[in-house]
């Protein structure tokens, strides 16, 4: 797979723009998944996918063939998502919407699940988790998502975010502590 990706990259750099389509098709789902987990919003996640592949194309000459294209585009996507979270207006708006309508996020996810049996309690827990996640800083949230949901090691997180491994670890620790505090009232109900 990696060798194929590398030959496709060479073809793109030789002027075959359409060859890039193969890379987009192969890695879009993974990129979307991580983007959605970080920004928690489908529309934003889709924009991040577009942005990541566009940036990837523009910087393709800088792509080091030592790593796989998948890893490389993943990093770009995580950084695009982190940038999106870090934009001043975005998160404030996000949190504001969340506070006005605590179930907004859970409804979106619940619709995806199409689970008619989902209980009110479950929705409340899910909404509370979403809110707790939104209260993390962009860096904490990204580090936590990569560790907790994407199962990335601390070293990988550090590499993706361009920070020291210890800083990545501290970001994850802080995120977990905050989430524990936020979710403490729900532990009896879960």
């Amino acid at each position, binding site marked *: 797979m990696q060798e194929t990706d590398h030959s496709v990259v060479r073809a*793109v*750099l*030789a*002027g*075959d*723009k*359409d060859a*890039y*389509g193969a890379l*987009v*098709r*192969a*890695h*879009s*789902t993974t990129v*979307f*998944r991580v983007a*959605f*987990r970080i920004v928690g919003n*489908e529309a934003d*996640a889709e924009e991040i*996918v*577009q942005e990541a*592949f*566009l940036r990837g*194309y523009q910087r*393709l*000459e800088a792509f080091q063939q030592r790593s796989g294209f998948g890893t490389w585009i993943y990093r770009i996507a995580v950084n695009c998502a982190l940038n999106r979270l870090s934009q001043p207006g975005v998160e404030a708006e996000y949190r504001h919407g969340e506070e006005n309508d605590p179930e907004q996020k859970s409804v*979106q*996810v*619940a619709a*995806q*699940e199409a689970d008619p049996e989902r209980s009110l309690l479950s929705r409340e*827990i*899910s909404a509370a*988790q979403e809110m707790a*996640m939104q209260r993390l800083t962009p860096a904490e949230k990204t580090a936590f998502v990569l*560790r*907790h*949901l994407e199962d990335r090691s*601390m070293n990988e997180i550090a590499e993706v975010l361009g920070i020291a491994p210890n800083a990545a670890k501290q970001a*994850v*620790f802080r995120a*977990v*502590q905050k*989430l*524990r505090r936020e*979710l*403490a009232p729900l*532990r009896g109900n*879960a």
Partner: protein
Amino acid sequence: MKHLSDDELIELYYGEASGGVSAHEHACRECSARFAELQQSLDPIRSAPTARRGADYGERVWESLRPRLIPYEKKTTGWRAWGQWRIGLAALGCALLLAATFIGGRYWERMTTTTKNTVAGNTARQATQRVVVVVLADHLDRTERLLVALEHANPSDRTDNAELQSDAQQLLASNRIYRATASNAGDPLLAGTLDQMEGVLAEIANNPNLTAADLRRVRNEMNAEGILFEIRVLMARKPDQTGGTNHAKGASI
């Protein structure tokens, strides 16, 4: 008993803790309860549903992305382009090598003929020049030593100053002869340096009451003019550079 820290519990949760931490968690009821509490908080987040995309998602992304991409310029790719260059360079290299061999051969032939004719005549002259080189080198060497001594002299030490003065007087006399000869022989570099040296030597030699201030001034002038450096350059000239009459050590002194 020291209980596990929150950070250790988190490391344990993610399977990154040491064996000791894990053993403690099993043995300690309090830490075990805290760990269970951590699991209760974090496990549900792991199982939170995520938005999914269908199999055609990649195609859709590509369709919307495609019009925004500008193709990279087509290059005459890889080894073909390099191959063409290589052939051109090799041809040029061969041509240059041929030309160099031809010219070199002609030059070598002329050189060897000329050398044979001149070797006999030069032998006697070279013997004389070797003596000149030794004499002049000795003079420059002594002058350099004097100037170095001057550079490091203690201006208040009268004994040292008297020695410097005596050496300078001896060198001044011979320096005049060498300078005049170099000038007549048309070697401006050697003549110029000897002239500068003569100024410094005269300053030291002809001042009956050489004071500390005088020494300092001479030393500053010497440093400013870089005389020591020039002497070293002259000293560094190889004997074979003295072949012509215009050269420093080849001047017929």
